[in-house]
């Protein structure tokens, strides 16, 4: 196999989220470019093997090229800013969803505990069950959202989540140490503990995030690979937060 065929083979192996017809088109265009480059190098006096090697070298890593072409095909962000925006959006949704359930639970538990004559109300247990179920559902949903927003990088970002969560919890503890709210509001440090608790919860629920992200990515790649000729993923509708999938005529 000559260097051109080898290179194109390797690039083709990384075009995983493209249907067959799209992969063929991409490789056809790359081959045409490479062949012209080789011709130019040969006119400059290089031998065929050397010209082919130089032409392939100019393209860089086949894995990087394949990944970038897939990102462009799926319409996912490739810049650090775009990726950070996706992560921030997901963490915000996680945070808000958790605060909706856990804040009333914490407040009610605290109110129930300060009165020695009030037994723990039954509704607190019901609230706890809903809060735990919502944690389960929201964790899986956030994993799905990350895959939807970031494509192939979604599951990779989830794998980094435990480190991020531990770091954020540490930041909250440091802030609590230097800015003790308790001086101004009785039991005010409960707020810091809740926020840190949410980040630690992220740490413990990351297997659910990973499950959501990985499952979704598998389904997403299957759907993308089955797109008929002439149709392209519609990035805005493509498994967005409301799990719609639309393609459009290319």
């Amino acid at each position: 196999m000559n260097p051109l065929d080898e290179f194109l083979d390797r690039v083709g192996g990384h075009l995983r989220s493209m249907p067959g017809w799209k992969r063929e088109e991409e490789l056809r265009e790359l081959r045409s470019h490479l062949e012209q480059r080789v011709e130019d190098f040969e006119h400059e006096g290089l031998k065929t093997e050397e010209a082919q090697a130089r032409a392939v070298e100019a393209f860089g890593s086949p894995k990087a090229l394949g990944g970038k072409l897939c990102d462009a095909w799926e319409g996912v962000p490739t810049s650090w800013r775009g990726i950070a925006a996706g992560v921030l959006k997901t963490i915000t949704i996680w945070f808000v969803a958790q605060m909706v359930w856990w804040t009333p639970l914490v407040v009610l538990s605290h109110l129930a505990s300060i009165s020695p004559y009030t037994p723990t109300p039954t509704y607190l247990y019901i609230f706890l069950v809903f809060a735990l179920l919502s944690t389960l559902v929201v964790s899986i949903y956030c994993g799905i959202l990350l895959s939807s927003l970031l494509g192939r990088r979604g599951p990779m970002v989830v794998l980094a989540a435990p480190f991020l969560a531990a770091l954020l919890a540490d930041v909250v503890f440091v802030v609590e140490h230097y800015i003790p709210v308790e001086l101004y509001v009785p039991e005010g440090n409960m707020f810091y503990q809740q926020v840190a608790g949410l980040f630690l919860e992220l740490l413990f629920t990351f297997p659910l995030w990973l499950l959501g992200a990985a499952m979704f990515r598998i389904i997403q790649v299957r759907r993308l690979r089955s797109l008929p000729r002439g149709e392209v993923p519609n990035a805005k509708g493509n498994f967005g937060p409301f799990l719609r999938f639309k393609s459009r005529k290319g």
Partner: protein
Amino acid sequence: MKRDLFKGDLPVLILAVVGEAPCHGYAIAREIERRSEGALGVKEGALYPALRVLESNGAIVGEWQEQVGTPARKIYKLTQSGHAELEKAATSWRSYARSFERVLGGSNEPA
């Protein structure tokens, strides 16, 4: 002095070349190098992803053209929205270049 293009530079240059006349990917890369007299190096690995992004944004449209005696080529041409984007980017770049030139060519105000 040869300089590699920054990530955000390449789409603008592609629009400028394609805006002049429809052409295929290889010709776009060579034309950028020719016009810059070799000063701007196009990384081949960045060219096709940039073309795909411009296509999906609707700034350019690609069409396969069968040719006699040579392999088929995908020719890109600028759309109306591509023209608008090129105008906007070119104005912004020219203004930036003028400001840079003024600072480089100027002298500090006396204290």
